[in-house]
């Protein structure tokens, strides 16, 4: 958790990447209800769409599923890590795949947190609070 960007004094911007529109809607709802000041919540249905958002928007935290058509979450994280243009981006995985091997794979790609679906809303809220607190 060393990728802090202290003193920016602005609300955080989030990117939610999941091929399920219902999952994206649920995560957005948790963000809305969290009371945490958020500048924008962007959405993408796969890694390719997420890359396009990252190219044009300033994103502080990425929440990504892994198993998606087009470009998977692992491929997305690999590309972000290799690119090096987003050193301050917080990376959180939200996946149904909680296997130790997949966690290890994500851990090697600068992922700060690995959350397993089903996800309790309060867990997501706590993660948001932690990210916001690290971004005063």
């Amino acid at each position, binding site marked *: 958790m060393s990728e802090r960007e202290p003193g920016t004094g602005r609300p955080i911007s989030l990117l939610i990447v999941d091929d399920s529109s219902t999952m994206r809607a649920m995560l957005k709802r948790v963000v809305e209800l969290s009371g945490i000041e958020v500048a924008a919540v962007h959405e993408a249905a796969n890694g390719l769409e997420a890359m396009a958002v990252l190219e044009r928007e300033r994103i502080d935290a990425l929440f990504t599923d892994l198993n998606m058509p087009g470009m998977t979450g692992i491929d997305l994280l690999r590309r972000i890590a290799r690119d090096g243009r987003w050193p301050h981006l917080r990376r959180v995985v939200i996946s*149904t795949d909680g296997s130790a091997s997949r966690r290890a794979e994500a851990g090697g790609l600068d992922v700060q947190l690995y959350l397993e679906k089903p996800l309790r809303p309060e867990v997501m809220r706590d993660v948001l609070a932690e990210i916001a607190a690290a971004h005063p």
Partner: protein
Amino acid sequence: MSSPRLRRRTPEPAEHRESLAAALDEVAAESFFACVESPGEDASGDAGAWLCVDVGFGGAFGGELRVVLPEPLARDLYCAFLGCEPDAVPLERELFDLVGEFGNMVCGRWLTRTCGRRQFQLRAPAVRRDGSPAVDADALCVAINGQPAWLRLRFEDDA
């Protein structure tokens, strides 16, 4: 680490009844605030249209999980998942997406617990309407929030 000389044994669906039931319990409670019970007589009534989702998987072993549930239950789960009013009416594509994600979560949770350190892959869920689903003989029959539903596993032959 398994020796290449040892053949993998194809699991029997019955071996996984308990772990599948546990995965369903967890998913229902944690994300859908739903209660899973044994099916009572009142849970087998006429539920109208049914939705069926198949989630294929591979890796440690291959197969498919099928989840079948009545459309009114799918709507209840949708509203609980998104925290919207109970009488909200989702579009068909939203309902199908929800049912796909529900099947995906149950299958992913079950595989995570079952596969241990072995990797697995999930295929995209395939959702369809099913007018009068015949319950498979080896299905796990339950009541979710008092409404009937059933799940069954199939494993690919490893021969």
